[in-house]
Every structure is written in structure tokens, then in C-alpha cells.
């Protein structure tokens, strides 16, 4: 079981309201990602759930039990930290066994569980090493191992891949998703990387200044962002936002169109512009088109084989049914 309900949960640090009262429902077995810019309160929210910070309002209910005032260890959750937070003076084996030792499990039982977790995470041959002798990826796997052996009702991940290099990050991302498939345990994952959010989540919670902007599946958020903030945050490169007369033509204060929903033509199209910087990724090319007369430069995604040069004139045409319309307060129309 791993159902978590936040009801009016709030957090203040002195005068500063970091998390205004918020409600959130996390179902058993879900992979939920908290995503948002730096300082949006996503890590604080995770720490509130973990019990490492005290709430200043509201209730946290875990599996039907009010856990608001319960100590971190009693909540039945396990956490994986950004810095791995391994015990440097213990071997990998002792690190993984630590929660079991604290729970007073017999030594034989501890060994059996450690061996099993090590097998799942390919750590068997490293069990007698110290964390200092391991690579970043291996250390993170040890941290995950330490979380697994507790058989928690939910895993909490606080930006666990931030310290890894890009290639390793992709690999670990898949390993964590694989682990979720295998265990089917609730996972709450904090990241500022929207690619991680999109690829891993069953449900994304977009946070901004401590408030929940939108909750939904990755594709819901991509297809129907509830406001300009979510529209701009989800999707890479960012959605193009256009205000002014062109938006009014669509009956909106602001319109948004994603780079992949604009077609490029050398001679004809709806909007005219000059090609600025081009980013060639092989499979795709991103063109930054300036002087569009729309009050904003636009980013356009084209195929890898499309070749345009700096200063070329191009014509852009948005897919009409992919245009997102927002009102003056930034809400979706």
C-alpha cells in the first residue's frame, strides 16, 4: 500500500510562506513527479511528506493513517537523496543493511535481504567496498538499495540523478522506471528536468512558488496545459508564446504554439521571419526565427535534413488545431 493524501498542507519558514495550503492525492503504485523551477518548493514538499520538515498546517495521510506528526522512520517511506547520502564509513553491505539493523532484524534475515537487493541492482560484486570506491551511478544504486530493503510503502526521490553525467542519467532513468514496473510501489520523484518528468511519470505535479499549477499525465500536460506557466514549462524546446494583435486574431490574449507544430517553407506561409541561430541535433534541427513581426522570436522544429542558413528568409505556418489560447490572467481558454 502506498496511498498518500495531502490535505491543506502548508509550510512557512518564519515570515515566508514557502508552500501555501495545498491538496494532492497520490494513488497506490503511482509514479508521481514533482516538477518546477528552482526554489518552487518541490523539495520542501517532498521533505514534508518524508517528515524531515514539520508542516505548519494541514494533514498528511499515508495509507489512511494521519502521519502529520509521525517521525520519518515511522512513516514507512524510504528516501533517495541527491547527494546519495551514503554512510562513508560503512561498506556497501552495511549501508544497505543499515535500515534493517535499525529495525532490529536478525543478522541472517539482514544478509538475505541485502543479497536480494544487491542482485536486483547489480551490486553483488561491490558489497564489500566503501562508497568512496564506487562511481556516481553505483553510489546511487546503493542509495536505492538501501531504500528497497525497507520495503517501504512509497519511495521518495529528491533529484536523484542531478549529480550524474548525461549518459549515466539516461541509463539510471530507465533503471528507476524499470524498478517501478517491477515493484509497483508508489514513487514520488522530484526533479527540475522536465524530460525526466515526461519520460518517467504516470502523473506530473507542476509546482510554481509553492502552488500546484497542474496535475495530470505527461501527455495531458503537454496537450492541454492549464495556464501559460505549465505551457512554458512542459515541452522542450519551450512553447512559443505570442501576445498582441496576432493573438487577438485567435480570440485570445496570448496564444502558444509548440516548435514541433510549426511548418517551415521557403516561399509561402502565414508568418514571415529571418533565420537566426540553428541547432542541429541530427534527427532534428531547431531554428530560432527572428523579426517575425509578432513581437517575439519563434523556435521551430524541423527535420534533421532541412538546411537553412543564418539570415535566410522563411515562412512559418502553425497547425491551427495545435494552437493554445490563453486569457489575460494566463489561464487556458
Amino acid at each position: 500500500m502506498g496511498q498518500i493524501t495531502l490535505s491543506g498542507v502548508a509550510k512557512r519558514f518564519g515570515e515566508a510562506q514557502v508552500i501555501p495550503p495545498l491538496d494532492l492525492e497520490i494513488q497506490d503504485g503511482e509514479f508521481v513527479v514533482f516538477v518546477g523551477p528552482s526554489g518552487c518548493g518541490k523539495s520542501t514538499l517532498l521533505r514534508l511528506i518524508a517528515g524531515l520538515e514539520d508542516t505548519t498546517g494541514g494533514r498528511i495521510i499515508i495509507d489512511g493513517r494521519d502521519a502529520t506528526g509521525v517521525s520519518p522512520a515511522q512513516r514507512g517511506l524510504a528516501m533517495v537523496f541527491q547527494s546519495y547520502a551514503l554512510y562513508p564509513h560503512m561498506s556497501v553491505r552495511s549501508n544497505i543493511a543499515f535500515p534493517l539493523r535499525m529495525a532490529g532484524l536478525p543478522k541472517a534475515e539482514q544478509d538475505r535481504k541485502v543479497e536480494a537487493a544487491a542482485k536486483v541492482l547489480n551490486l553483488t560484486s561491490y558489497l564489500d567496498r566503501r562508497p568512496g570506491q564506487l562511481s556516481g551511478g553505483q553510489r546511487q544504486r546503493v542509495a536505492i538499495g538501501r531504500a528497497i530493503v525497507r520495503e517501504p510503502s512509497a519511495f521518495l526521490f529528491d533529484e536523484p540523478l542531478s549529480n550524474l553525467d548525461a549518459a549515466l542519467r539516461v541509463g539510471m532513468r530507465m533503471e528507476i522506471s524499470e524498478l517501478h514496473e517491477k515493484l509497483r510501489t508508489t514513487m514520488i520523484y522530484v526533479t527540475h528536468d522536465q524530460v525526466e518528468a515526461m519520460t518517467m511519470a504516470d502523473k506530473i505535479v507542476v509546482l510554481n512558488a509553492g502552488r500546484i499549477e497542474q496535475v495530470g499525465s505527461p501527455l495531458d500536460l503537454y496537450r492541454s496545459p492549464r495556464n501559460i506557466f505549465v505551457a512554458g514549462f512542459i515541452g522542450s524546446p519551450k512553447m512559443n508564446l505570442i501576445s498582441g494583435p496576432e493573438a487577438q486574431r485567435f480570440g485570445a490574449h496570448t496564444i502558444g504554439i509548440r516548435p514541433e507544430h510549426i511548418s517551415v517553407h521557403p516561399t509561402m506561409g502565414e508568418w514571415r521571419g529571418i533565420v537566426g541561430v540553428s541547432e542541429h541535433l541530427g534527427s532534428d534541427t531547431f531554428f530560432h526565427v527572428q523579426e517575425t513581426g509578432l513581437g517575439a522570436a519563434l523556435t521551430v522544429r524541423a527535420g534533421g535534413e532541412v538546411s537553412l542558413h543564418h539570415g535566410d528568409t522563411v515562412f512559418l505556418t502553425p497547425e491551427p488545431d495545435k494552437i493554445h489560447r490563453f486569457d489575460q490572467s494566463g489561464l487556458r481558454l
Partner: protein
Amino acid sequence: MSRAVTPARKTINTVLAWTVALILFFPILWTVLTSFKPEPVAVASPPVFLNFDWTLKNYYDVERQRDYFDYFLNSVIISLGSTVLGLVLAVPAAWSMAFVPGRRTKDLLMWMLSTKMMPAVGVLVPIYLIFRTLGLLDSRIGLTVVLMLINLPIIVWMLYTYFREIPGEILEAARMDGATLSSEIIYVLTPMALPGIASTFLLNVILAWNEAFWTINLTVTDAAPLTKFIAGFSSPQGLFYAKLSAASTMAIAPILVLGWFSQRQLVRGLTFGAVK
């Protein structure tokens, strides 16, 4: 930009370093040499450096007049006892200051340190009276407590500095893993801070061993440590330099040996966190 080290500069530096080291070490060297001199040679003018009849008589006399080992045992008990007691109190104190600081933690630390700036004699009378009332005068327990109290600010400060170097996330991880506060301190914090704790331990043993003001003023015979042992040779029957030197050498020898064997640990501990 690194500075070029020419052979000449290296030689000058070496000579300078040795000179400074010798100046610092000279009083100890002179004490040790004097302890092997016959009493008249010890006060001879001009002073005799090495050319004298070396003798162990002073050591025999010192040991015959006073039982060195009684004093030695008191020194060991008082310095180890006060340091261990200090650590037991300071580890939780430094833990709370380092990991759950309040608004006034810095002020508290400064206040603790400021007590070290006060002349000890300022509180001699009240402490003497309290000790007399409690029957703690000339007792090992009393001296252990008083030495623990005067060194506690330094122990807390040193441990606080070491603990600050330990990432808080590791302790949070322990908390998530089900560790109680005491298991968190015993199984995670203490082993991680062991180099720091060890150097704090060594430094405080040395400080307590060398402490003379309280040990001389609060003891007579039963709890008297080596500082009292030395002082005993400088007053009643006049000054006997050679015997006094022998007593001093016997008093400082154990701590010199301890310092020699632990110098690596001490230097590492004292520069902990200064360089990565």
C-alpha cells in the same frame, strides 16, 4: 603563479625553520639537560651546556622525596576523566548546534568561548567555597569536574567545527532509515567525525594534563597531579633547580610521548576542513 625555489632560498628557509624550532624547544631542552646536572652546576654562571658530570641523582632524590607515580596516576585519571566526561556532554551539544541551530546558537557559542577569556582567579573564591561545602577539595572527582568545565567550551567549539563539515543529508538518511537520535549519533555521526573527535580528545588531554592553576589551588595531596608535584619542588626548602628540572622532565615526559605519537592526528584534526 608558483614562486621559484632556488637552492639558496631553500637553504635560508631551512636554517630559519630550524632556528625558530630550536628557540621554541630550547626551554624544554634546557630543563632536560639541567635535570642531569649536579645542583651546583645547575646554577653555575656562566651556564654549562654539555660539559658536566651527568647524573641521575636528581631523579632518585625526586622519586625518594615524593612518590612520582601517585601524582602521575592522578594526572592520568584527571586528564582522561575530564576529557571523556567533556566529550560525553559536548557531542550532543555540538550536534544540536551544528544540525538544529537556533537563532541564538552563534551567540551561545561566543558566550561559551568568552568564559575562556575571563581570568580563572576571578572565580577561584566561589569555586573554592562551593568545593569546600561539597567536600570536593583535594578530590579527583572535584578536579575532574572542574577541568571538564574549563575545557568544555573548547571541546564544544572543536566538535561543532567538525560536525559542520558533515552533510546534514546523511543524518537525515539515517533518520529515514529508522535511526533514533542516539543511534544517529552513535552509528553515523561519531564514526564520521572520529578524526575530529580524536584530535579534540588528544588536545584536551594535553590541556588538562598541563593545567596548573586549578590543580594547584584545589588539591593538597590526595588528588594532587604532576603540576603540584613540580610546584612542590619550588617552594618550601628553597629553590633546587636540578631537582625541579628532574621533576618537570618526569611530568612532561608522558605528554611529550603522547604528543609525538599523535602529532599526525593532531595536525590533521586541527586543520580539518581548512583544506579539501
